[in-house]
């Protein structure tokens, strides 16, 4: 399939990345080549094959509903952010 400029812009939006014009062109070219490569899977017959998402069979494990101790304290975690006020992380306006 052919990847058009609007496809790249759509993917950038899905990915939450703003791209410069030169990056749109170069990434578009790269993505086109990568998609061409992975499309060779069309040649493999996978009819009636179950998908694998995880290599080991997982079983659900129940545990008591209690609070586990945390590796990091609230203060330590909050100290990692750029802007903080009254124990809350500050960001630019949302709306």
């Amino acid at each position, binding site marked *: 399939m052919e990847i058009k400029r609007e496809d790249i812009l759509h993917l950038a939006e899905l990915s939450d990345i703003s791209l410069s014009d030169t990056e749109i062109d170069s990434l578009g070219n790269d993505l086109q080549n*990568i998609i061409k490569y*992975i499309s060779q*899977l069309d040649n493999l017959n996978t009819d009636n*094959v179950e998908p694998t998402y995880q290599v080991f069979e997982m079983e659900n494990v129940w545990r008591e509903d209690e609070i586990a101790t945390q590796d990091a304290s609230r203060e330590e975690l909050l100290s990692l952010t750029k802007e903080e006020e009254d124990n809350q992380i500050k960001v630019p306006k*949302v709306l």
Partner: protein
Amino acid sequence: MKIANKDISAVSLVKEALEKAKKYKDYNIFISMNEEAALKEAAEIDEKIARGEKVGKLAGVPFALKDNFLSPDGQTTAGAHILEGFKSPVTATIVEKLKAEGAIVIGRTNLDAFAHGSSTENSYFGPTRNAYDFERVAGGSSGGSAVAVALDIVPFATGSDTGGSIRQPAAFNGVYGLKPTYGSTSRYGVVAMASSTDSMGFFTKTPEDMDLLMSITSGQDKKDLTTLPDFYNTSESKEVKRIGIIKDFDNESVDAEIREALKTKCEALRNKGFEIVELDMPVLKYALAVYYIIQPAEVASNLSRYDGVRYGFRSEDSKDLDSLYEKTRDEGFMPENKRRIMIGNFVLSSGFYDAYFLKAAKARTLIIKEYEDAFSKCDFILTPVSSNPAFKLGEKVNDPVAMYLEDLMSVSVNLAGVPGLSIPAGMTKAGLPIGLQLVGPRRSDKNLIEFSKELI
């Protein structure tokens, strides 16, 4: 690696490692050093030994940490700009286990940003040079760790292997590199790339050191629900009779000297009485395409957390929250990170999910079955690690698909969850190391390491 015999002090060992690291500064092996804390820890161990107290199996042994393992010693960067200033309050389980035995972190090694790459050229901190040729790549993504061990700066280093990131740089620098069975070592506290294939392992100079490290770090971890109960330390030794070689990998796209090295090792094994079995594994040629669908899909999900809000780099002057996310991610990620995130969102997006992601997940089942069939015919498989020895800096950096092809012979191991051990197998005429890969069934790690001694 044991040093608790007073002949040599932990302080002198750590000092020596730090001096060597300085001597090889031009190779760009380390992103940051942990000098002060390392010397302090070494002095504490020497005091313990002097007082006759019990010390761990790795007491005073200096090691290098791939810079995607979280630990409060300094910053964790994952080779990326977007984690700028990030000092982790938590410690990776593997690091905790190594430290409990007295091992000492001397520094954090360079990697392709978020482990996305096969040359360490995608690092925000510049490429690491090959231990044998300054103009060539270290391999990747764990390039810094491989070179740190190859140049004898440290006796071991940690690595993560999602598609070949331990085995290929090990091969490029002539050291041992193990990607263990998926789930045998904990992923907790290591920056996630593709969670269904990420495996944590090591670089060493000998199979004995690898065995010691695995015996220390294997086992179930409540903080990583995909870890398996310890099978490593309860493994029973198994008689090895048959070694498989993969017919499809013996073709002209593989470097002639690497094919020759494989033949030489097979001949040596025959002379020791092992049987060499040729294997047909026709689905393996699709493994790289499968990997470059599943891995970016998981990358897109795992890297969605980097948005400049809670930690790391934040783009300045954003007018609203959306532009804060978009600008932070544009400025903070390397081009390869962006490619993988966007490919991941492509293969997962409506309209393409069935044709790409679901198709790849089905193909993965076929790859697992192909390995199961292969291990009904042989005990272990011996293959090249990559199609070529270390390539020149800059050679593949503008061609993502050529770079991806570096992982052609290593990714199927990750998709199947089986262990793979890269072993040194001689040198090319030009003086570059050649590596071969031993692959075993799931949970055969201990026997795989043991068997590698037959190939020294």
